[in-house]
């Protein structure tokens, strides 16, 4: 593949992935409003288009044309930098995510992954520390929220971002530890390698997903709980607890800057769902349906991947409609006294079994 083709393919892949990601983000908001509405016995958005399907577009237009108020008391450079930082770190993570196997189009083979390439032998390969890059970007994402609260120069914002920073740093430990079990059984840090290790099946139908085949279901639940805290979602949404802090760290933001925080939160949800899918649910692997025509078969991995992502996004919404918010000390105690020891125990037990098998 020449340098020019490589560049063109890369740009096309980036454009498609970011386009799809932003659409998913917009329609997750729609789905959330609709689903939570039905759970609370209301309709949710229903006026703009059929089933309110054009609501995200209307919201986007509204955000663009609203007056962008910059309060006079803010620290202006940091106030402008914070939403950009939050959104950029949230959107960049998707570049590491392997969405599907190699596709062949117009005589060019490339994996469905922005940072993936096909090597000389025809195998797909990607960054060999991919999962760590995602964790690194997540840890940098804290700055967006922390700086938003600090630069707003307002009590509620500062309290919200203090809570967010403490919570994200605390739960990042459990989140990282819960992934170590999977890394131990996979023997690689490359996300594509982790998916490839789960592609097999026992007896022709039981998938070798890490959650069952390698007994990582405890790690899976630790990961999910830590991920809820990392993305500041209910029941861990203390940083933006409306009843206490107005809107938390983005109280002083309006129009598109507020929308950027909003998009960052939902993009982070998608990234977390992608990582959970890759680490625990076998990525794009799924039942093969041999009776379908070959053209449809080629899209099956993407369909399975999308289904798993949809499942996780729905669980997010479901839990938001079900659980009340924790108290802050409960949140910290739960993170450090329950999740952290449990994650450590999981690492030790998994390491023990890996050592026995080796």
């Amino acid at each position, binding site marked *: 593949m020449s340098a020019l083709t490589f560049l063109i393919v890369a740009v096309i892949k980036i454009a498609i992935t970011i386009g799809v990601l932003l659409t998913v983000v917009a329609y997750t908001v729609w789905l959330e409003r609709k689903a939570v509405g039905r759970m609370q016995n209301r309709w949710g958005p229903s006026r703009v288009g059929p089933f309110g399907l054009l609501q995200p577009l209307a919201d986007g237009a509204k955000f663009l044309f609203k007056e962008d108020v910059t309060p006079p008391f803010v*620290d202006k450079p*940091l106030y402008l930098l914070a939403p950009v930082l939050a959104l950029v770190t949230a959107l960049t993570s998707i570049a590491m995510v392997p969405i599907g196997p190699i596709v062949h189009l117009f005589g060019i083979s490339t994996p469905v992954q922005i940072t993936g390439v096909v090597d000389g032998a025809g195998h797909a390969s990607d*960054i*060999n*520390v991919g999962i*760590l*890059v995602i*964790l*690194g970007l997540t*840890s*940098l994402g*804290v*700055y967006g929220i*922390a*700086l938003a*609260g*600090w630069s707003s120069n307002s009590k509620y914002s*500062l309290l919200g*971002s*203090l809570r967010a*920073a*403490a919570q*994200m*740093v605390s739960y*990042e430990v459990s989140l990282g530890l819960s992934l170590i079990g999977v890394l131990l059984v996979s023997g690689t*840090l490359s996300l594509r390698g982790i998916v490839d290790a789960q592609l097999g099946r026992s007896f022709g139908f039981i998938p070798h997903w890490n959650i069952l085949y390698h007994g990582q279901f405890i790690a899976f639940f630790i990961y999910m709980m830590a991920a809820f805290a990392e993305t500041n979602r209910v029941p861990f949404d203390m940083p933006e607890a409306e009843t206490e802090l107005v809107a938390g760290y983005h109280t002083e933001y309006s129009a598109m800057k507020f929308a950027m925080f909003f998009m960052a939160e939902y993009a982070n949800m998608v990234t977390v769902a992608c990582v959970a899918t890759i680490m625990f649910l076998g990525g794009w692997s799924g039942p093969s349906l041999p009776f379908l025509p070959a053209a449809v078969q080629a899209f099956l991995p993407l369909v399975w991947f999308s289904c798993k992502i949809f499942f996780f996004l729905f669980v997010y919404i479901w839990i938001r409609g079900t659980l009340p918010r924790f108290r802050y000390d409960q949140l910290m105690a739960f993170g450090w006294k329950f999740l952290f020891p449990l994650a450590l125990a999981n690492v030790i037990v998994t390491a023990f079994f890996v050592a026995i098998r080796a």
Partner: protein
Amino acid sequence: MHLFLFLLFAMLCVGGAVNLLIQQKTINSALSLIVVMGSLALIYLLLGAEFVAVIQVIVYAGAIMVLFVFVIMLLNAGAEEYSPGSLVARIVGIPGLLVGSAIAVGVFLRHGQQQLVPIGALYGPADKVGILIFTKYLLAFEVTSVLVLIAIMGAVVLARRSDS
């Protein structure tokens, strides 16, 4: 290309370090330090040490600097004041800097040439770093972990002192 990237990130690193010193607001200094950490990570990446680069981002730019920013936010630290500067620094400072740089450049020119290695020949991937840590540098690794443990215990003791 490689040299260009190196110069870019090296300048970013040095610029961040200088900015760290001359900024009056504490939070701006902390952010400059993040820039320094980030550009160091990119220089590691240029050396072919991708694992160390990512760990640099996670640990230093991510965890440690978040705690710095957290403390600055918690104390609501405002602007610092410039001190008039010490007489010793004014007299010895620039000559000392020149002598120090001259010595460093001399050492690198004399001994640096033999050490040039191609990119990727060093210990980039995680498994090689792990093997090195748990075989060749095991003693240093364990001693460091004891040191960290002592630091944690010290912090706990200091935090508990006000209770009793």
